[in-house]
């Protein structure tokens, strides 16, 4: 998986950043916090401006990590053939 270094860096800083940046979006490249934004769109705009179509890491600073779920794919029950 790409962006593992950035994910580890984020996890190491999460508690600290919760104090200062709760519910904001951090833009990270490597082990560097580039900037903090109030929306995903603004963070993405800055990421593209700096790195173009290269990988960069955006994450909302929140206490609980949401777990995404797509039951239909997980269970293989989606049917989409007309």
């Amino acid at each position, binding site marked *: 998986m790409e*962006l593992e270094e950035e*994910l580890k860096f984020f996890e190491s800083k999460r508690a600290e950043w919760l104090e200062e940046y709760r519910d904001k979006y951090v833009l990270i490249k490597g082990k560097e916090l580039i900037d903090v934004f109030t929306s995903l769109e603004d963070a993405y705009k800055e990421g*593209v401006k700096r790195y*173009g179509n290269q990988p960069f*890491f955006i994450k909302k600073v929140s206490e609980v990590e949401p777990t*995404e*779920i*797509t039951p239909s794919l997980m269970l293989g029950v989606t049917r*989409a053939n007309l």
Partner: protein
Amino acid sequence: MPIYEVQFSPPEALRSSGAIFPIEVSLPQILVDHLTKQGITPPPPVKGRAIIDTGASISVVDLLVLSSLQISPIGVATVLTTAGPTNQNLYPARFILPRLVVDLSAVIGADLRPLQIIALIGRDILSRFIMIYHGNAGRVTLAF
């Protein structure tokens, strides 16, 4: 308020096939503008079909589509699988639905080819508009 209606014929087709509609998936406009300024021609949008899945918390795009669009990841999400929670990359995507453009959505990738769709629209995108599922009439209405 723009309204888009999909009428299935016969109405029972909605039950059997699900809420399917045409869609285009492309790079977000911000990235298209950036590449164009650099003299790079962005990959063209990929056309196909999407299904609405109210059970999915996040939208999904077919891996081959992400690959053909040459999109780099912008994050990581924890996704529940049959093997437990796993980390998966998030990719920025632009969805062009009839009468609606969702310019930036962070999606995960999966092999959707067996389903004959290129995208699965989850609650992250549904949270941006109203959907009426009229089962008797075989009609789905989206209002933005």
